[in-house]
């Protein structure tokens, strides 16, 4: 079985804002495009124009409905990819060492040349964040765009994961969650960022910012905002006349 590093020098990961994600799938396709063209084997699509298309994606968006007793139902869009766990069960279960966690930044990767496609890691991941590529028979997963974030062939501002660069709503943030002073760590602190399924003991690096409270607009007293309330002071025309005189 494969060992995890004792610690990592950084904990690079994503902070995903569920208050802001509109569920547009921009991150899904940007990821598909970059990772088809880059790290390892292309992400294949079987029966691409047929009855049951089945492609490999490293990031998918799920939508959930939340019904509430005393307020309107909510819809939450939930993008999901590898969370680059500190205590990654997908790594420890790997029989060949193909699955590993990088000691320098904590990114969890699959070394495709060592992967035998046994699928144990996908079974071990409680988040369902890994996908076996049906054409190549190797395990695919989010690389956190390891071939972008340090890439000296890219302008510095583009050295971030493709999904973060493309997110139109700005709902995805990238940084070092091991550094409490980083922008992402501060965002997590400010907005009550959460671990996904902490009871699994996986210690995910990626964090989710919960939706802000919804449907809270209080029933107000519009008249109390008025000085003086037109209804109380000889009707609308009187109010109009007085106000016009003051202009």
């Amino acid at each position, binding site marked *: *079985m*494969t060992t995890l590093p004792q610690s990592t020098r950084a904990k690079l990961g994503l902070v995903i804002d569920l*208050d*802001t994600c*509109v*569920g*547009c*799938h*921009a991150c899904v*396709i940007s990821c*598909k*495009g*970059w990772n*088809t*063209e880059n790290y390892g084997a*292309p*992400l*294949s*699509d079987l029966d*691409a*124009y*047929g009855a049951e*298309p089945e492609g490999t994606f490293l990031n998918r968006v799920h*939508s959930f*409905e939340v*019904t509430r007793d005393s307020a*309107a*139902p909510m*819809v*939450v*869009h939930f993008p999901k990819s590898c969370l680059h766990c500190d205590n990654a069960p997908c790594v420890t279960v790997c029989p060949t*060492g193909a699955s*590993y966690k990088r000691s320098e930044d904590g990114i969890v*990767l699959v070394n495709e*040349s060592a992967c035998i496609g046994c699928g144990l890691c996908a079974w071990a991941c409680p988040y369902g964040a890994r996908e076996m590529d049906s*054409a190549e028979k190797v395990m695919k997963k989010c690389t956190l765009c390891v*071939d972008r974030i*340090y890439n000296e062939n890219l302008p510095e501002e583009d050295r971030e994961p493709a999904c973060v*660069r*493309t997110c*139109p*709503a*700005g709902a995805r943030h990238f940084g070092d969650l091991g550094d409490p002073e980083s922008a992402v760590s501060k965002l997590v602190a400010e907005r009550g960022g959460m671990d996904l399924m902490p009871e699994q003991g996986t210690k995910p690096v990626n964090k989710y910012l919960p939706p*802000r409270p*919804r449907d*809270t*607009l*209080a029933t*107000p007293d*519009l*008249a109390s*905002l*008025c000085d003086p309330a*037109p*209804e109380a002071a000889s009707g*609308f025309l009187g109010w*109009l006349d007085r*106000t*016009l005189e003051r*202009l």
Partner: protein
Amino acid sequence: MQNQPALDLSPQVSDEVRKTTCYMCACRCGINVHMKGDKVAYIEGNRDHPVNRGVLCAKGSAGIMQHLSPARLRAPLKRVGPRGSGEFVEITWDEALAIATDWLQPLRESAPEKLAFFTGRDQSQSFTGWWAQAFGTPNWAAHGGFCSVNMAAAGIYTMGGSFWEFGQPDWDRTKLFLIFGVAEDHDSNPIKMGLGKLKARGARVIGINPIRSGYNAIADDWVGITPGTDGLFILSLVHELLKAGKIDLDYLIRYTNAPYLVDAATGLFLRDDAGKPLVRDRRTGEAVAWDAPGIAADLAHGVERDGATHLPVFRHLADRYLAPEYAPEAVAGTCGVTPAQIRSIAAEIARVAFEEEITLDQPWTDFRGVKHDKMIGRPVAMHAMRGISAHSNGFQTCRALHLLQILIGAVETPGGFRFKPPYPKPPEAHPRPHASHAPGQPLDGPHLGYPLGPEHLLIHDEGTPKRIDKAFSWEAPLSAHGLMHMVISNAHARDPYKIDTLFLYMANMAWNSSMNTSAVMDMLTGQNEDGSYRIPRIIYSDAYSSEMVAFADLVLPDTTYLERHDCISLLDRPICEAEALADSIRWPVVSPDRDVRPFQSVLLDLGARLGLPGMVTEDGAPKFSDYADYITHHERRPGIGPLAGWRGANGNCAGRGAPNPDQIARYVENGGFWIDHIPEEAQFYKPWNAAYQNWAVERGLYDSPQPYVFNLYLEPMRKFQRAAEGHGDRQPPDHLRARLRETMDPLPRWYPPFSEPQAEGFPLHALTQRPMAHYHSWGSQNAWLRQIHGHTPLYVSGAIWQQHGFEEGDWAILTSPHGRITLPVVRMDALNPHTVWTWNAVAKRRGAWALDPKAPEATQSALLNHLIHELLPEKGDGLRWANSDPVTGQAAWYDLRVKIEKAPAGQSVSYPDHSAQLSPVPAPPRDLAHQTKP
């Protein structure tokens, strides 16, 4: 075992980046196309581009799969089987252009109106309209009539612009944002970016929409309104704000026609001898010209004349909306909301507008010459789209929304709604519509425009329409975008006259772009007794094997968006920002590998073969070698051409200037776009700001300053209403009088959608939305995007689900007064309880788009279009009324009423199930594992 392999962390990304403009939807974002050799490897957003600032949606990033779509047409096609079958032979371009010329030349010489040329979602309407004008046919328009003309026309008439390409919320400053009836796609990336900005600073977003998905899912507050009642809801907000005195009187006096005096006898404005509208000066009590210097215009009192009191517009407005019929209690049931929701939203608008006022220390001077030392903003912004406009009360509803924004002083002020140049542009500054034609002659002027009274209708003396779509007739007086959705049915019925050739571009009229799709397919194939087709000839241009291709006699294959020149022009639907003038191009970042040509270049070639004015030189040779040559050298007015950047012989002119032969090269160097910032003092109050007006003249947007006031009261509407009351020479037919009197109201009014009488048998509303990851029918040919949306489940509310005992895996039969469809059902609680909905345009005809005939798009999907007739059900009055807005003719898609029942057990294929069309393109590859090698 810990084995960390060495990685190449800096792989070469591409050989070259070519910057052009996306065309995966109408948003027109800038894209970086990464090339490996001569192949496209990867597409991302262009960080410098004003529209998207580097971000890109799912569609944009999937552009590579559209470019490589197996549905791409390969060569011109000539029909050899019956229409609709899809039996074609590939022919040469010489043969295709000879056929088209042989068909069109005699029409131009004898009866140019027998060509009906309509284009879909193309972005070259100023060019195709110019071509049609030169040909001489009055029958040209684009897709606005079935899209959102209510939104556009109501905005232009009320305040000189509307949403999307007309204007945008002040995303950086607004503190309260209300978004009404926006499908998930409009206006894709800028709205998402804007919402992201609001969310980042915790500004409140209120979504008013029957469906809580997409943008509405992240709204802080959701109003699950009943479809077709937005106008009533908005006017109730107006009622509350008026009642509380939470309106900006100073703004109304300065910048709107609120003080104009309305003649008690005619309902038209009192005017002086010079024709200037009059207002009452509070200091003297006299009626004086609205723009007389130094007056204090009154909103409260009228003047006595000829024994009558003539009140200002504002009094009419206040009297109407303060009436109890607009009180929250009176409207809440109809709107499907609670009175408390209306009150709370009105109070929040009032609080933010007046207690969180924004002040910018930016001096400016208004058109009256008055200097202001500050810019004062009411940081409430609104946005709306087809959800409120695609109803038979849509025009008046859109007017109501603009009224609400204007009453609180939140248009063209900081934090509110801002115009994007060349808007603001009031109706008077737009052309009138034209339709006078003669053999061998160009049309007498531009086809489309803004009528200011019955005198501008395009009708013959006996009242019959001049256009095949009956635009600008009494049936749809203000149909500013034409009525594309009526063309095929009118041509088939030969009403108002017979045409010969139907020429369509990029409009899937045989499928998702028509109401009543099955019947439209029958009309396209309808025959006379002698076996000839009722619509004699159909020419179609498309890049892909769409459903419409199968119905054409001649197909002119277009290129993909990466293989062509285009201009996103100020003459058309520009990409400007509130702070800047901007336009952009597409250029061929790759060459076509098929025998296809860009449609606009083909149209120029055809124009030259027909000898159309402006397209040939004096000796009859083609004037332009291709569309790029036209973009560079065509002048609409002296110094004004399709592109505004780098004009003049040296390329140093902005807006106005002589053609520059290097212009396109300069655009390419700059990343595909040009941007020119508006001076700081000209950034707000644009309709009234002297600095803006002067800047706009310098840039060629106007030829002289055009300050104007907003039309709370729309006098042209009153002119049509008066005609319906029997005044004037041009009189509507008697059967339309009552409807015109009711609907051409000069103040916004709500009336129930015309489908309301169907409610008894069809108690539910049915809607479609376009998903964020698809654009119309295009997404299904895209191997990546079709995995996100591959079929169209019918989403039903919890109430409907329980009432009908639906269970997971069930199918439903959805029936309208016109037809039925069968779809799988899915429960969704975040939905208006009386509403069902599904995704738009994902359903496909078998055989189209190079998909497997068993694809879920064909077997698990249906269009709501099958349920929607272009006419309302018969009412027993001997007439058939259009299923459209009576003001603009906009297709009333969202008026649809339905009933639902559980499909019998065992249902597994959607209905209707049309016969397959033969595919004119080869079968697609089965599997993809696409990695680009140079």
